[in-house]
């Protein structure tokens, strides 16, 4: 399998407001193969969005190497980032026009993905007239519409109710299977990661701490007990990292694995 994303010794530092610089990404190495579904799992503030910004080419100030090939890069931001003065339809048109998708294909692409996201009836609504979760779904439609070869997704389903999120996750897998996209998917949710990914990278403190291949055959069913079992392993690996972080007031009762489990599970919205 040839790789489409290659990152080597990536370092990124931000200047704090007091002038000191703080390393947010510390020597990251990452290779993502064509057509792979990779999930990056990590606590808030560990640098996931920063990494995606580098991959998307938005952030060009870093040390090390980061190269992305293999077609158009789609990026679903952590926030919807819709243009408030355009309707849902206008926002999609903006993306399609910007990416120079032939006009003849617009209506087919829009209808298809709007239907998938359950937004067909909301074409003429302005962003302020739809809910937060709907806006997030519309942003997903916009990202898919332009048919990117590589799709970067930053916690896309965190604002959705579980039922809707489940349905869209399955749809996403279907699209992924059908179009052979490469997907890098950032999430806090270990169960979601286990359901979706080929491979999970656990990130914390600006570095990857664990790599796990998901040994579950596809197609997967969301209620498969194997996913649940595996997600527990992931949470354990993830929990170790959290505990290694100097988090004040974290549950630190010695050896109470159960407590720790619950603590991290709560953190990861399971």
């Amino acid at each position, binding site marked *: 399998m040839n790789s489409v994303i290659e990152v080597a010794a990536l370092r990124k530092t931000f200047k704090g407001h007091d002038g000191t610089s703080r390393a947010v990404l510390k020597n990251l190495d990452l290779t993502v193969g064509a057509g792979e579904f990779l999930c990056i799992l990590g606590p808030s503030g560990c640098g996931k969005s920063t990494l995606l910004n580098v991959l998307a080419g*938005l952030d060009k100030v870093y040390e090390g190497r980061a190269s992305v090939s293999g077609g158009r890069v789609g990026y679903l*931001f952590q*926030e919807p980032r819709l*243009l408030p003065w*355009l309707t849902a339809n206008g926002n999609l048109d903006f993306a399609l026009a910007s990416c*120079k998708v032939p006009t003849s294909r617009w209506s087919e692409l829009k209808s298809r993905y709007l239907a998938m996201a359950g937004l067909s009836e909301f074409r003429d609504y302005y962003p302020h007239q739809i809910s937060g979760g709907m806006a997030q779904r519309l942003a997903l439609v916009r990202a898919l519409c332009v048919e990117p070869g590589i799709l970067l997704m930053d916690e896309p389903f965190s604002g959705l109710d579980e039922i809707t999120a489940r349905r869209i996750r399955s749809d996403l897998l279907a699209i992924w299977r059908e179009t052979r996209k490469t997907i890098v998917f950032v999430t806090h949710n270990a169960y979601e990661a286990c359901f979706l990914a080929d491979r999970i990278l656990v990130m914390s403190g600006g570095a990857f701490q664990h790599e796990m291949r998901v040994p579950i055959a596809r197609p997967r069913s969301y209620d498969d007990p194997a996913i649940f079992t595996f997600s527990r392993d992931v949470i354990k690996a993830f929990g170790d990292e959290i505990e290694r972080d100097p988090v004040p007031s974290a549950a630190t009762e010695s050896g109470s694995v159960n407590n720790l489990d619950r603590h991290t599970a709560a953190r990861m919205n399971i």
Partner: protein
Amino acid sequence: MLKLISLVMAVIVWGLLSLTLPHEIFPGPIETTRTLWGDIAGGEVWTDLVMTLLRVAGGLVLALILGVPVGVVMGLNRRAEAVLDVWVMIGLTVPSLCYAIMAFIWFGLNEGAAIVAIAVTAAPSITINIWEGVKNVDTKLVAMARVFEASRPAIVRRVLLPQILPYIMASARFGLGIIWKITVLVELIGRPNGVGFKLFYWYQLADMRQVLAWTLLFTIIMLLIEVLILKPIERRVFAWRPQVAV
């Protein structure tokens, strides 16, 4: 409806206040309206009014041409901001009368000088508005557009401009308020016609009826411009905005 009531209230307050002074020096609304009507019927208001409106329009256009680019540059570039900040402050501080005098002395007593004086006075406040607007541009939307491979002109036109437009509108309105006051002043010192000229003329004759009649005329025209031109434009441009209920 509320607006209408408040307008009527304003007229009533005027009427009551005018009772406190002899009516030759503070005529009430009825007397003033009658005088104004006489002027209009006599057909002599139009030249002055049209000249003033042309100066207002010319001044506004030139002020926008001067003020908007400077504001945009200041919003985009830190260094330009540091350099131009002082200039804008100076520009804002110099009294409009100084600009008018300088313009007339340097460029002669002509329309060009009048419009330059008007524009230079109004430009700094327009600049400040635009500067503010450009600084408030949501860069996250720009990043989004870049991810979607939007070209630079497309980003300017479809992402930046709609965000700055409210500020341009606000500064045009704000500028108009300032501009018509300066125009009257400029006409007073250096033009042979216009509302300001007429005001000064009647002031010298100590005819308060005429002074108030011209003030009334101008106020009505400005209100009409606001209601018939600016408001509808604003409504069209900002149709997408949610209604704010406080």
